[in-house]
């Protein structure tokens, strides 16, 4: 169980300070937890605080009963942690096996036979057994991500934190990665931070949406989806005019009969052919962001 109470984080001091988190309250249970939000919402800062790398400016974070404000608590959390940062740095001259083995040593797996077993097991889990002897500099982006998840898993962590893990992956790799995370969440807490709504929808039963350092939503993906009910329409226009007056265009499709728009907003006027549409998770997210006054960058 992770408990976050009134968590705030400010970088810098005085007039040049930036508030990354502002009064976050969250309780996260075992299983898969999604953290959604636009770039700059504070997701990475929250991930880094949970990983014990960044210190909060205010508030309390407790993971498995360990208080992260103490060095002893931090060390205890890091012992049971698997962490995959957004910007994954690797040693290009090491092979995949050597890298994961080295991380296992740093995480305190001292017994060589046990370590060998763990390294081989995690490399197999991420489908890199055959490439384990290859140097990391020869790996593709997807393979590097898999090495990243292997190092995160090598100590069999009770808490797995993955920050934007599918960024830069091709569709097949993304699906594979998502399935792997769901499997892992069966016996541990997995926190998935992303700005890709689809990743959350396909993997999480519990999520929070961050915006401007605050929790804008907490609940299930279906609850977020339902929030947009009655606020999503499909409109097909023949004219060049975009139906974006106070509405957010979620998608647009050029068809033979004109351009079809999917729109999210409070109300629609001037388009009698507008069809109310069943919302999806992405619509729910856009609707939430719109109401929170966030800049929604789509289309």
């Amino acid at each position, binding site marked *: 169980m992770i408990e976050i109470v009134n968590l705030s984080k400010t970088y810098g001091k005085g007039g040049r300070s930036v508030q990354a988190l502002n009064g976050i309250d969250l309780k996260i249970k075992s299983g898969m937890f999604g953290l959604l939000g636009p770039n700059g919402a504070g997701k990475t800062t929250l991930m*880094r605080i949970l*990983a*014990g*790398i*960044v*210190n909060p400016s205010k508030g309390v974070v407790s993971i498995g009963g360990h208080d992260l404000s103490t060095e002893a608590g931090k*060390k205890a959390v*890091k*012992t049971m*942690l698997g*962490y995959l*940062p957004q*910007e*994954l*740095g*690797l*040693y*290009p*001259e*090491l092979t995949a096996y*050597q890298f994961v*083995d*080295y*991380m296992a*040593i*740093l*995480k*305190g797996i*001292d017994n060589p036979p046990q370590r060998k077993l763990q390294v081989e097991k995690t490399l197999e889990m991420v489908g890199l057994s055959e490439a384990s002897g290859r140097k990391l500099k020869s790996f593709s982006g997807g393979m590097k991500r898999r090495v990243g998840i292997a*190092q995160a898993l090598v100590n069999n962590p009770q808490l797995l934190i993955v920050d934007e893990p599918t960024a830069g992956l091709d569709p097949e790799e993304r699906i594979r990665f998502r399935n792997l995370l769901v499997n892992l969440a069966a016996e541990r807490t997995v926190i998935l931070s992303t700005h890709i709504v689809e990743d959350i929808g396909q993997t999480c039963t519990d999520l929070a949406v961050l915006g401007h350092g605050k929790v804008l939503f907490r609940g299930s993906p279906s609850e977020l989806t339902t929030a947009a009910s009655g606020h999503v329409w499909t409109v097909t226009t023949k004219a060049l005019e975009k139906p974006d007056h106070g509405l957010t265009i979620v998608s647009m499709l050029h068809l033979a009969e004109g351009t079809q728009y999917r729109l999210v907003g409070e109300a629609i006027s001037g388009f009698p052919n507008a069809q109310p549409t069943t919302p999806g998770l992405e619509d729910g997210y856009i609707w939430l962001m719109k109401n929170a006054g966030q800049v929604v960058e789509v289309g």
Partner: protein
Amino acid sequence: MNRFSFRYSVLTFHTDQLWFPLAFWALFAIICAIVKGDSAFANAARGYIGVVIPLIAGIMSAYAGLDDPALELRFATPLTPVRMLAERLGLILAVQTICALAFEAYYLAIGGNFIILGNFWDVQLAWLIPTIALMGFGLVMAMLTTKAVGGSLFTAVIWLLVFIARSAMAIDPVWRYVMIYMGALIPDSPVLRANQLTLFLLALFFFAASCALYQRQERYI
């Protein structure tokens, strides 16, 4: 728990950090061979072990803590800052020690000697003390500026300033205790031991300060 792996420390060490000291070693070996028999013969040898080795070690140390592609991953492990730094600094010191001892052996082999510096241990202190002092300085400046290049720049500037002002510093009642190259350039100074002790204590302070600063991991990612 044993969290030190010499093998991986070497493998994750930038190879240019090995070529850099080796290149200087070769340069001074060639210079000494060329000026053999000349008055510059002894000066070149003393200059290398007592002045150049500390500079190289200081610059390399500035990169020890921060120049690491997997720094954020390492910060997420239970490894303490002291262990992280000791792993890298130990390797840098080992490389410098090999360079110094190999150069001493080479210099003796081509007919030189370090009698002017004192006995065997005086010769070792002549490079070791300034080396660890500049290592500590380079490291702490890198931590303060949060940039490896900042640490190396400050190290180079201090190295140059002290070298230029070495004669004035050697006779100053206060500055003579921090004249980094005293063991190699003014070995007969009456305050040599006090100077070495001061530099050693300063090095310890720099290392302790670096470890404390390294604890604040968010500054470096």
